[in-house]
């Protein structure tokens, strides 16, 4: 692991009218780290992820550095091309396109050639697209419209699409939301396996505490738009203040 963090967020603040969503968040992600972002609803987790990914209309205050480069206020496409991929809380795929076309679109967006008029580029990308679908277990659905596959499979598809863009940092916003217990674990294992194989740094928002403690190296706890606590799973588990505000322990 290198000394310089891959991502640094400094004094990030964001307001919606009078509501303060982020009130000066500082965070640094080491290369190869798996960081979980937890906290009660309204803590600002998704807002922070969106600020990093460039999906905040109107931008936000503060500075975001990615690999030493200031990406504050950059467009989502510019941030994606730099190597930051993300999934959304409600998975966003191209539902009327087939599963294969979704993957082709992901490879095109990342690899260029999106403005080509010849179908040759699509034929060239077919094999890598099918290979990526096999990696996330969706090859058998290649010809199905994305809207016809299950919620869990759409989560897999969205993850595979982002993985196809070869990110160095992956932002997963509630990757297991809306899924059953067994399915959650299997999905997260699959995701973390691919992330580890590719040496991708991970920041994920998650409500399932079992998933968080099982897969995160470091946990950041947010509350009311601020970082409330930060540490290893063992440190967070032992933090009584965190238990009070989030884990619901009684003492």
């Amino acid at each position, binding site marked *: 692991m290198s000394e310089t963090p891959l991502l640094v967020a400094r004094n990030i603040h964001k307001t919606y009218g009078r509501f303060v969503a982020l009130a000066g968040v500082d965070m640094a992600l080491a290369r190869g780290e798996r960081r979980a972002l937890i906290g009660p609803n309204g803590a600002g987790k998704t807002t922070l992820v969106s600020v990093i*990914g460039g*999906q905040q209309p109107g931008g936000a205050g503060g500075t975001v550095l990615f690999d030493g480069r200031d990406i504050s206020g950059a*467009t*989502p*496409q510019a941030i*994606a*091309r730099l190597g930051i*991929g*993300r999934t*959304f809380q409600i998975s*966003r*795929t*191209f*539902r*009327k*396109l*087939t599963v*294969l*076309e979704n993957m*082709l*679109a*992901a490879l*095109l*967006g*990342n690899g260029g*050639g*999106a*403005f*080509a*008029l*010849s*179908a040759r*580029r*699509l034929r060239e990308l077919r094999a890598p697209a099918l290979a990526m679908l096999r990696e996330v277990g969706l090859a058998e659905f290649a*010809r*199905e*419209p994305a809207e016809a596959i299950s919620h869990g499979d759409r989560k897999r598809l*969205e993850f595979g*699409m*982002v993985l196809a*863009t070869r990110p160095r940092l992956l932002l997963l916003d509630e990757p297991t939301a809306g899924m059953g217990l067994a399915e959650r674990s299997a999905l997260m294992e699959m995701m973390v396996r691919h992330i580890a194989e590719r040496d991708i740094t991970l920041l994920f928002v998650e409500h399932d505490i079992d998933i968080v403690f099982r897969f995160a190296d470091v946990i950041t706890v947010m509350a009311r738009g601020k970082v409330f606590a930060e540490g290893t799973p063992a440190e967070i588990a032992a933090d009584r203040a965190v238990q009070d505000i989030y884990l619901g322990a009684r003492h």
Partner: protein
Amino acid sequence: MRPAESSGAVQWRLVVPAVLGALALLATLGQGAALVITDVLIMVLFASSLNLLTSYGGMVSFGHAAYFGLGAYGLALPLAKLGLPLWAGLALGPLAAALGALAIGALCVRLTHIYFAMLTLACSEIVFTILFQAYDYTGGDTGITKFMAPRLGLDPRLYGALVLAIVSACLLLLWKVVRSPIGLAIRAVGEEPHRAAALGYSPRMVQLVAFVIAGTLAGVAGTLFAVYQGNAFPDYAGIGFTIDALVMVVIGGLHSFAGGVYGAVIYTLLKTFVSRYVTEWELVIGLILLAVVLVSPAGVAGGLGRLGHALGRRSA
């Protein structure tokens, strides 16, 4: 898009009979029928160009006739006012539409949904007003007439065949666009721009490319229409033509390449023949539109698709 359309191959078993059928009709029917068929063919191209925006690009334009009108005036003005040769006018018509679409599109793609629609409407009204008010140059509401012999002075059947060839080539090009990388990008951005941006696409740039392609093809239709009529009027760029094209696309079927074709054929034939017998022909069109929206929101193309699947299941 439905998987049936995902193969990318041109459906020659449908295209060849359609083209041959149109040729046979042009050859065997009289001059009057040839005029109607030519009108239908031009509207097929106009509606299909709008279909690229609405069905694939997710952009509902309320100003698409602006490019149809620019195509017509791009031909008529150089011929009537500058005395340029016909070939130059035929090239300048679509070029004027392309440049207009580039300028207007660059502004409009900055907005989405109803705001995009309203901006396209506002821009097309500006084009219409300029054509209507700049009397010294455009002839105002009297338009530009007698700058060339209608239909190049050809027999209507021959001009119809020429239009058939040009429209077929343009539709083939449009099909290639839809099945190409840029077509996939247009469909992706049209459906989920945030996802597309997070994958590295520049949504506005992709939308602008779609806007210019659609505007240029609408311009080709406008140029063909001006040659067909031998005149150009501000109405060609008016809201009436835009609404016609939108109705064609909805009747024909959103989210289907053939939607523009079916819709233009049905709408233009109804307009031509029903108006001969019923003064309130718009009422008939309105009722058909109502029925389509309520019974088959995917239009005629969607209905035919469902019928095909049902028949396929029965025979299996």
